[in-house]
């Protein structure tokens, strides 16, 4: 009887261990998935992800975000510390181009940039990713512009100067459009 109980307990412990291993593997996988998402988005903390979550609903200023995320209002003693933490996170998000605010004006609510929305859209989609702000085509076209510009300077009295000028104008037009598009994605 005693040995039978022991055998049962040992076998139950084995099952539990197997379940525990399975659970550990799942937890590790989810942890890596979460870390990957944070890295993909360029986020440093959970607070930043909460800010993004709050801004999906629309533009908000820092005070409103403190109220939404921490639930504290201006008259609550801990409001100042929360405000500071959130402002620091906002600066970091601005630094990575995920949120933006108006350049001028007294009331300057933060909003998600089109670049952030693209990144959120492609988040967790294997094999898909938002376009980079400066892609290889952009680099190529900037280099072509500068090279043809340099060619215009160096090719004195050469019949190729016309070709260099044409290429310069063409590449400058494309690169200006690419710059405008990049700035729009960050605004």
């Amino acid at each position, binding site marked *: 009887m005693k040995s039978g109980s022991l055998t049962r307990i040992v076998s139950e412990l084995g099952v539990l261990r197997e379940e525990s291993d399975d659970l550990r593997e799942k937890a590790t996988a989810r942890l890596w998935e979460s870390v990957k998402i944070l890295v993909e988005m360029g986020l440093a903390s959970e607070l930043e992800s909460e800010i993004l979550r709050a801004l999906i609903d629309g533009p908000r200023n*820092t*005070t409103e975000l403190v109220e939404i995320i921490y639930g504290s209002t*201006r008259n609550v003693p801990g*409001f*100042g510390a929360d*405000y*500071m933490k959130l*402002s*620091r996170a*906002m*600066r*970091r998000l*601005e*630094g*990575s*181009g995920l949120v*933006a605010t108006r350049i001028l004006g007294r009331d300057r609510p933060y909003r998600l*940039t089109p670049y952030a929305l693209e990144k959120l859209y492609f988040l967790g989609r294997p094999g898909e990713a938002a376009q980079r*702000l400066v892609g290889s085509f952009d680099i190529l076209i*900037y280099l072509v*512009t*500068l090279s043809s*510009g*340099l060619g*215009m*300077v160096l*090719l*004195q*009295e050469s019949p190729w*100067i*016309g070709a260099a*000028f044409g290429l*310069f104008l063409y590449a*400058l037009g494309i*690169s*200006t459009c690419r*710059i405008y598009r*990049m*700035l729009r994605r*960050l*605004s």
Partner: protein
Amino acid sequence: MSPKIEDMGVSVPSGPVLSLRQKAALASALYLGLCMILLVVAQPNLVAMWGEITSPQPTDCSGEGEKQELMTIYRDDFQKISKNCTYVETVNGETFLDDGHAYLRLLEATSEEAATACIMEREKSWLYVCLDVKLRLSDEL
């Protein structure tokens, strides 16, 4: 009116000095500025190129089919033209740089029968006009 956040003793922390948008705008301004500098530096070359494009191109007077115009030039007209010329080339490839000399040589070359000559502009060696010159100098003289 709600109190300002700074009045509550909260100092806004200093994060990154520039946002990504400001950095991108700055880099773009530098890039476009560099392009403009290149354009300004290359301007003399471009102006020269434009001058070459808009100036009349040398005409080949050697081929029969290339003859532009058949003219009878009288002595006075020819003197007027030759005053503005420093460079004359005959169909035979002879070139004369001196005004008077060119005039005389052209007379020699064309006094008996119609000849083709290319009369160049004074400033540059651009071909000004390509003529089948038929001189009737003997009549005038």
